[in-house]
């Protein structure tokens, strides 16, 4: 029987303390540059107390709430991706000696203390499973594996989805079902805490948990129902592969490309996108060189450059690549869609392109499961 109990709001400060004592470096949601992003947590006071958000296509603003809630907002621009699949990383360094012999050494990770992330949402847990499938199966990526191995996840149920959220339609939220070490459900006076792993049990055992009352259970159920009901958007189905590939010549690709800036904001904020490019950065003396890996996107020309030609030179093909891969061929690659319904690509697209709307139009006639 896993640990399940109620933690009074005033006792939450013990959580980062327990994690620090267990050797973790804590990150959690903090307000930075007008948005909720993950950052180092020194104390529970760093969390966004009484902060709410307003999200629409191409629009994000924070506001003040009347209460003391710490997690009454939907996901900001950043998920866990940048902490595991880092935006830029040195994979190796090479050196050439006077006789022309080459030597290689691996890039060194910045900080290899294990990380505990507080405030991870259901969509990000689902995205993490997909990133794991990409970076850990077959040829594990050493840097990702190292960072992922030590990761302790404190998940939080979403009680205040944004207008752009649609995780209920993808089956990934808003409540956290699995894949966490600890899960929190925030109520007015505290948190229902639920351990989901042995490491989670060990931390939970040190928290002053009380039994969960009937009223608290009822409040949790009400909030979960309301969070689902609050979601306005949906994809037109869980598997759009055949519908998308039957519509490669749909006129909508051209129409969306007239608005699309091909700027890669959508793929950068998407918690499941994993494309990257490699770059060699030689030192001026020409004897040493760093080999970098950095985030790339299907919206760049380099992404489809093959020996002298750019295959997707124009935006219609790039947008089509994004959607047909994310919602289509991911099913062949990873057994599910690459979209977890977080809504980030809608909010952070500078011109507010909404993939649920585009997919609905493009897949209108073809069948679905």
């Amino acid at each position: 029987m896993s640990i399940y109990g109620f933690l009074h709001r005033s006792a939450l400060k013990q959580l980062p303390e327990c994690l620090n004592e267990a050797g973790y470096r804590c990150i959690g949601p903090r307000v930075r540059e007008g948005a909720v992003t993950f950052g180092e947590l020194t104390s529970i006071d760093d969390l966004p107390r009484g902060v709410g958000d307003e999200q629409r296509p191409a629009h994000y603003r924070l506001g003040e709430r009347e209460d003391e809630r710490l997690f009454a907002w939907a996901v900001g621009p950043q998920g866990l991706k940048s902490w595991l699949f880092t935006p830029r990383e040195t994979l190796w360094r090479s050196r050439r000696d006077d006789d022309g012999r080459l030597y290689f050494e691996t890039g060194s990770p910045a900080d290899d203390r294990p990380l505990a992330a507080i405030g991870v949402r259901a969509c990000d847990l689902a995205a993490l499973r997909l990133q794991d499938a990409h970076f850990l199966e077959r040829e594990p990526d050493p840097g990702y594996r190292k960072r992922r191995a030590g990761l302790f996840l404190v998940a939080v149920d979403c009680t205040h989805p944004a207008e752009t959220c649609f995780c209920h339609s993808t089956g990934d939220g808003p409540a956290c079902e699995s894949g966490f070490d600890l899960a929190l459900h925030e109520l007015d006076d505290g948190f229902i805490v639920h351990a989901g792993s042995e490491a989670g049990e060990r931390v939970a055992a040190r928290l002053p948990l009380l039994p969960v009352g009937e009223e608290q259970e009822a409040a949790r159920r009400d909030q979960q129902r309301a969070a689902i009901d609050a979601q306005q958007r949906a994809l037109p189905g869980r598997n759009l592969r055949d519908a998308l590939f039957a519509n490669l010549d749909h006129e909508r690709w051209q129409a969306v490309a007239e608005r699309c800036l091909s700027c890669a904001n959508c793929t950068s904020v998407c918690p499941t996108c994993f494309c990257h490019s490699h770059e060699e950065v030689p030192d001026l003396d020409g004897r040493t060189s760093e080999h970098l890996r950095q985030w790339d996107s299907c919206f760049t020309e380099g992404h489809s450059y093959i020996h002298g030609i750019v295959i997707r030179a124009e935006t219609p093909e790039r947008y089509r690549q994004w959607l047909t891969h994310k919602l289509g061929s991911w099913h062949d690659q990873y057994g599910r869609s690459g979209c977890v319904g977080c809504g980030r690509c809608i909010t952070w697209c500078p011109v507010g392109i909404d993939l649920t709307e585009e997919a609905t139009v493009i897949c209108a006639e073809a069948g679905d499961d």
Partner: protein
Amino acid sequence: MTDERKPRVAVHKFSSCDGCQLAFLNLGPDLLRLAELVEIVHFAEAGPSNPDADVDIAFIEGSVSTPDERERLRRIRAHSGFLVTIGACATSGGLQALRNLRDSESEWREAIYARPEYIDSLAHATAIREHARVDLELWGCPVDGRQVLAAVRALLFGVPPVEERDKVCLECKRHQTVCVMVARGEPCMGPVTRTGCGALCPRFGRDCYACYGPAEGANTTSLAHRFEGLGLAPEAVARRFHFIHSGQEPFTGAGNEAAGIIPGKAR
């Protein structure tokens, strides 16, 4: 690379503010290391002056805006192996090209100079590529020292330098900067602007003003429309596109369209 002869380098100045040459000088220790790898035969701002020497690599700062510059450029091209423009002025005409928009060279000359008869300038200030073959263009106002050094390094290896053509946004997101357009409603030019600066402005909380010029596949029409949606007046939208690179398509056209300017017609 053989050590028999060090590659010879020249840095030339045309109509400009000297900021890109300063980007060279500000390289600090790297400039000293560079001086060990190449022979800097002409760089008037730093000392050596030998403008007509034969060189392997010539860097050019500034636009062509006088008859004398046109002539000087012809000589430099004839004496240079690989010609690289550095900065906005050399690459698109830069700020000086603003006067082209209104065909107002004589008007300004009369208004600004006490003795306008001493000024001998061309009707238009234009990019180096309009007058001579250019092998590589490094954008930015000013250029980034990292890009200058990377170009020299590539040439020393005997390979073509890598051109960076993506949009600023991708680099902005790699830095995990919060988007100033989405979170604050600022009219950021990042989505149409060429990368290379490391998303410097957004990282300091301000909107990109496109000093690196247009990125590949820049959708200026959509962004101009978005700026209107953010509440910018047509003149303000035009200024976003015309500010630094009014001489470079698609920015010239996007700004003209926003302001209702018909090219070639003085207002």
